[in-house]
């Protein structure tokens, strides 16, 4: 059997697709959230931050359980699915995207929030004294200055989505072409004693993880050099 079998290819492509879409949505949601957390002052800020950070601590099965209930026919997920004639978001690709976004949110929000906080108010004040509206200040000063945070957030969000297993199994199941992503596929191959396929995918994941860590380190280093 060749390494790049249709079955393996399908799960790799599905994983990449899931991670890309999730990362894009994550960045869109995490940016305003991180901005708010970095600038709002008040006790509720930390409460919101703690809620966002919950997936860091919760077992994926617990998170998966609640998400399954929410996405199921009787939850809001079922209601959303009814718009396109579906019955449920559970065990669908869309449901998987929602789950991944919730699960990876803290990994994206935290670095972006830190990057916003680290630069302080001064650059924003300077921009305001130079007649820049808050909108222009955000896009031309705050976001470029927080770029390392965005890079770290995006890489972490992508990597966590690729690597997630427990949550995917809970809400996505194991449907080839729809919810059978890499991590689940490896589990499946081991279950059915297809060690060769499992070792190919596992090796792929090791290389992927190594690349992610290497890229992050290099980005960090570059940011540190630019700040010096």
């Amino acid at each position, binding site marked *: 059997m060749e390494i790049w079998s249709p079955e393996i290819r399908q799960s790799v492509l599905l994983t990449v697709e899931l991670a890309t879409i999730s990362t894009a949505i994550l960045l869109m949601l995490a940016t305003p959230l991180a901005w708010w957390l970095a600038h709002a002052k008040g006790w509720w800020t930390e409460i919101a931050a703690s809620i966002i950070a919950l997936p860091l601590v919760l077992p994926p099965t617990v998170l998966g359980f609640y998400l399954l209930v929410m996405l199921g026919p009787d939850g809001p997920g079922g209601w959303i699915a009814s718009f396109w004639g579906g019955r449920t978001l559970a065990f669908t690709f869309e449901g998987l995207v929602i789950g991944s976004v919730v699960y990876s949110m803290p990994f994206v929000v935290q670095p972006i929030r830190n990057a916003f906080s680290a630069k302080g108010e001064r*650059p924003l*004040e*300077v921009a305001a*004294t130079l*007649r820049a509206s*808050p909108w222009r200040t955000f896009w031309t000063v705050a976001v470029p*200055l927080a*770029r390392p945070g965005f890079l770290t957030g995006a890489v972490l969000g992508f990597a966590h989505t690729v690597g997630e297993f427990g949550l995917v199994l809970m809400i996505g199941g194991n449907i080839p072409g729809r919810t059978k992503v890499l991590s689940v596929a490896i589990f499946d191959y081991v279950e059915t004693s297809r060690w060769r396929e499992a070792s190919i995918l596992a090796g792929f994941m090791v290389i992927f993880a190594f690349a992610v860590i290497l890229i992050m380190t290099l980005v960090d280093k570059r940011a540190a050099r630019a700040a*010096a």
Partner: protein
Amino acid sequence: MRTAEPGRINAAFRGRLGNFMLDAELSVPATGVTAIFGPSGCGKTSMARCIAGLQRMADGFCAVDGDIWQDRKSFRPVHRRPIGYVFQEASLFPHLSVRRNLLFGAPKAAGMQITFDEVVDLLGLAALLDRSPHRLSGGERQRVAIGRALLSQPKLLLMDEPLAALDHATRNEILPFLECVHERLSLPVFYISHDMSEIERFADHLVLMEQGRVVGSGPLHTLHPIPLAGSRDRHGDCSPRRKSVGNRTRMTSMPIDFHDIDPNRIAAILYRSQDDVDTLLADFAETLARSGERIGGVVQRNIKDGAGCQVGMQAIDLMTGREISICQPLGSGATACKLDAAGLAEAAVAVTRAIAADVDLVVTNKFSKQEAAGEGLRSELADAIAAGIPVLTAVPEKCLDAWNTFTGGIGTSLLCERGAIEGWWQDMSSRIKRARAARLPSDAPAALFADHHVG
């Protein structure tokens, strides 16, 4: 003062900032440079931030040239106020080049009061344009920050201690640029500082602040000695002497090295305690000043009663001829008295100004016990010598060792009577004139400065 008057800047702010209470009102002309002066923590910066709108105080009023920026009902956000703000740290955008930093706030439309090319020229930025801010020196960064603020075409320029974060040499590098800016633009400027020598150089109007309140306001020269001398006892920190004459840290951290200075340029009149060296020096210096020589610094004159007893003393700024401060008479029979703190601060300013104007001779009254102990005009004297300007002072015999230590034992000229002083000066001035004839073109800017100050 909570009304908008054309031609004036009216501001009033009252409220709490952390554990600090600001309750300040001011009304100053919307022209020229207004210096806001006061000790650290007196609310100068808060005042400027309130005017800029960076700090919002509920009970506040601000109107510039009849245009209301804040009152009880309205608050114009910072980005809609036509201000330029120069912070203490240059705060350039690190992700933009110098050129793009400069252009960040520049309007696209025509009809500007100052153009990009003019700013680059005025602040000497041509060589820096394509550099990244982190490759600039502290002084260069602050110049870019000033240029960036100017290019946003402000109607009011707020400068919050723009030189405070810089070392002495860099400060002297920037001061001439600031003066050019003030001369080139008819822009009202609020210049915040705790350094009287900076303020003296270009402020027209002075606002004194203390503990969150405005305690005095007026044209510069009529105002400053009185409240400062008066407030010295209550708030030791408010004395300008500590700040502007001080520079103690520099003295101890940076040993003075005069070894590349021509020892002939430094002359000291050696005198005994019974000699009237003050009068000797003052007569000599004032004769030179009257004959049109470019000299600066301070001398002292004793004030005597009819019987010839000294009853007081007065110091004179040689460049302006202004009397600096008159001590209270000490009673008849007194043989010596000193300048008080405010007077000393002014004397220091006089010497600093003379150095900045690159005069041909700096005269300081004495290098005596005070200077030997690291106080008085010691650091100004050191600056003058380090600037390579001929220096004439007087040293009491008992302080000769301290003087030699101060000058690093390079062998300064020691003079004893008027004939020797005149001989030394003739020799020195003919050398200066020869040197000037040889490098006339490059010397022109210095001469311009001198004219500006004397006038």
